[in-house]
């Protein structure tokens, strides 16, 4: 089913009910929930609109030239506030185009578990950290996980440690890859409990979209088949089909405006010609992601909000969490051909919960993965202690390319007040605005948990019969695709930015719903939770609007 082309265009001077900033995993859902509830919506998206027929299997364009990342703005990085931030040194991976990160993500779709919402009361405070309970529980969010799975299309099968669910998965798991078979073999030999990895990728035709064709160009690429469940060709066309929603690409929001009464009045943005425009709205929802949303609030400081819009708590930009990550590889006797099909087909959750006996806080999960794009693998996929060029290198590459798999670890990041998004005092981005400044240092427990899962990954690969295993050394994070925690939810306006319905404590007609809302970062794969929060927020915001409570 071809998505309906937008039938409505609003002139910026027309006051729409809502401006939604960002059209990604959260923004697309919020726009659809509001538009289908009868509200008029303009979605301002920083990036262009790229449609599935334009997605290519081109490593140079997509991975090296950031064709999907479209990242002309720079940012600076430092480990702590005692240093001066410098450009580069870390890679923030997000995608500036309609659909955002939901276009190119791995599509791993893990629900949070009950423990994720109540770790502070279960484990006690962890000194020096901002570990807190959420203002909502798993049970509050469960109906919306279900809604997301059934509306967007998620494939999976319940596993032994799963939290309760009110409906089964709408689609059965994707077929297992050789990496999944070997992962299962090794895990079972160790007494662990592997299960199918839940994926927001269609294993069968669904809602007019075809099933995954196993093309292999998944993580980092857009899906030309529309089988990866991106908002681009699911909820966004549903929003547009109402005739009340316009998605306006190439619109870089620089400021949310407020009136004398402290209510937002709309968004000032640069249009595709870098000319300033102002879209009027009765209310605004920010869904930019966990780094762009706090930056926009800080850029929107005014005399009424000198520390940034909605920032009376001082918490905007703080408690940035990236999730922990590790990667290990194994080479086997016979071909696996991991260049085919999706990124991950098996996972195990035996290590999900934090175990005080380990001596550090942390939990997570290893999964069976591939990252076998030919150029990327040739550049860095082989063991680092071997030759990297020449006849010997070529021999190993020919032996290993089809016979290698990875086991990656995904784990917790503690929320630290000192890990932040702020505005750089010196550097400017491509539009002349203060660049984003990232301050981040992994907590020692986060690194300990990454190493713990890496050790388990090597054990699994060896138990599976790998001829040889090797690791990417665990070090301080220098690549972050999960951007979380920077406008955390809470009941107390002194220690949180939004309330339990994603309304800014300080501004009655401003809502924030994306990765910034998370109080704890989970064990990785936050998209399922971000999207469940977006469905829940959208429903409640629409109800507030109907009742005149905005």
């Amino acid at each position, binding site marked *: 089913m071809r998505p309906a082309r937008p039938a409505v265009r609003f002139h910026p001077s027309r006051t729409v009910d809502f401006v939604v900033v960002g059209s990604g995993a959260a923004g697309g859902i919020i726009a659809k929930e509001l538009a289908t509830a009868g509200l008029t919506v303009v979605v301002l998206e920083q990036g262009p609109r790229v449609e599935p027929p334009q997605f290519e299997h081109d*490593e140079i364009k997509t991975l090296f030239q950031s064709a999907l990342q479209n990242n002309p703005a720079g940012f600076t990085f430092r480990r702590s506030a005692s240093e001066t931030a410098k450009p580069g040194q870390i890679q923030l991976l997000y995608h500036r185009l309609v659909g955002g990160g939901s276009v190119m993500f791995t599509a791993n779709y893990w629900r949070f578990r009950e423990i994720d919402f109540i770790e502070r009361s279960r484990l006690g405070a962890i000194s020096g950290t901002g570990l807190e309970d959420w203002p909502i529980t798993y049970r509050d969010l469960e109906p919306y996980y279900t809604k997301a799975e059934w509306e967007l299309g998620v494939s999976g099968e319940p596993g032994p440690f799963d939290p309760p669910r009110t409906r089964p998965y709408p689609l059965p798991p994707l077929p*297992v890859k050789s990496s999944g078979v070997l992962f299962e073999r090794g895990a079972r030999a160790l007494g662990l409990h592997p299960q199918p990895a839940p994926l927001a990728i269609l294993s069968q035709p669904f809602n007019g979209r075809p099933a995954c*064709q196993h093309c292999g160009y998944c993580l980092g690429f857009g899906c030309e088949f529309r089988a990866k469940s991106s908002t681009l060709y699911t909820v966004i066309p549903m929003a547009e089909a109402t005739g009340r929603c316009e998605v306006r690409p190439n619109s870089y929001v620089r400021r949310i405006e407020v009136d004398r009464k402290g209510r937002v009045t709309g968004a000032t943005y640069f249009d595709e010609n870098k000319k300033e425009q102002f879209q009027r709205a009765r209310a605004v929802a920010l869904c930019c992601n966990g780094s762009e949303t706090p930056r926009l609030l800080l850029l929107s400081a005014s005399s009424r909000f000198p520390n940034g819009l909605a920032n009376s708590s001082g918490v905007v930009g703080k408690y940035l969490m990236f999730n922990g990550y590790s990667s290990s590889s194994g080479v086997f006797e016979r071909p696996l051909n*991991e260049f085919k099909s999706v990124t991950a087909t098996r996972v195990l959750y035996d290590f999900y919960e934090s175990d005080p006996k380990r001596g550090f806080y942390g939990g997570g999960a290893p999964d069976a993965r591939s990252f*076998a794009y*030919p*150029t990327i693998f040739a*550049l860095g996929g082989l063991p680092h202690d071997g030759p990297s060029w020449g006849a010997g290198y070529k021999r190993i590459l020919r032996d290993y390319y089809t016979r290698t798999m990875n086991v990656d670890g995904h784990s917790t990041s503690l929320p630290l007040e000192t890990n932040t998004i702020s505005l750089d005092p010196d550097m400017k981005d491509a539009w002349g605005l203060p660049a984003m400044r990232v301050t981040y240092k992994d907590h020692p427990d986060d690194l300990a948990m990454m190493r713990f899962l890496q050790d388990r990954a090597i054990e699994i690969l060896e138990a599976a019969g790998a001829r040889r295993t090797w690791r990417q050394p665990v070090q301080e994070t220098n690549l972050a695709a999960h951007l979380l925690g920077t406008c955390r939810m809470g009941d107390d306006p002194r220690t949180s930015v939004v309330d339990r319905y994603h309304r800014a404590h300080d501004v009655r007609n401003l809502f924030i719903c994306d990765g910034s809302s998370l109080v704890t970062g989970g064990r990785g794969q936050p998209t399922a939770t971000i999207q469940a929060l977006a469905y829940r927020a959208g429903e409640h915001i629409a109800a507030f609007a109907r009742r005149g409570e905005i």
Partner: protein
Amino acid sequence: MLTPDQAADLDAIAAQIFPTDDTPGAREARVVTFLDRSLATWAAQQREPLLHGLDELNGEVERRWPGTQRFANLAPERQLELLRAQEQTPFFQQMRFATLVGMFSLPAYGGNADKAGWRVIGFEDRYAWQPPFGDYDAEAARGR
């Protein structure tokens, strides 16, 4: 955009980075065409550092083996000896990166001629596959 001398030198370097054995290497995959095209277009900002690095390499060739003038004129064993000594230099690292990208990127960029690079490693760009994908899931499916 490359002069014939520059092309010959870069082709020789690439052929040592990814040599020909009983299967095609960088020469057959026409990595030098990839380099020429890329440096004239999307990788233009790498052109000056790369060609400057090549000049320095050729300076080293002339210093070690006076009268040889250029890398491409060296016997293969001497080419290898020199590159091993230069392994850690930014120029060599840039050439290694460019050679491997030229071997395995889409043929539309000028390298990976006739998909030779992909065939060498066992990759196939079929765009759609069906299970079984590899030996282990095939074996598991038979065993069920």
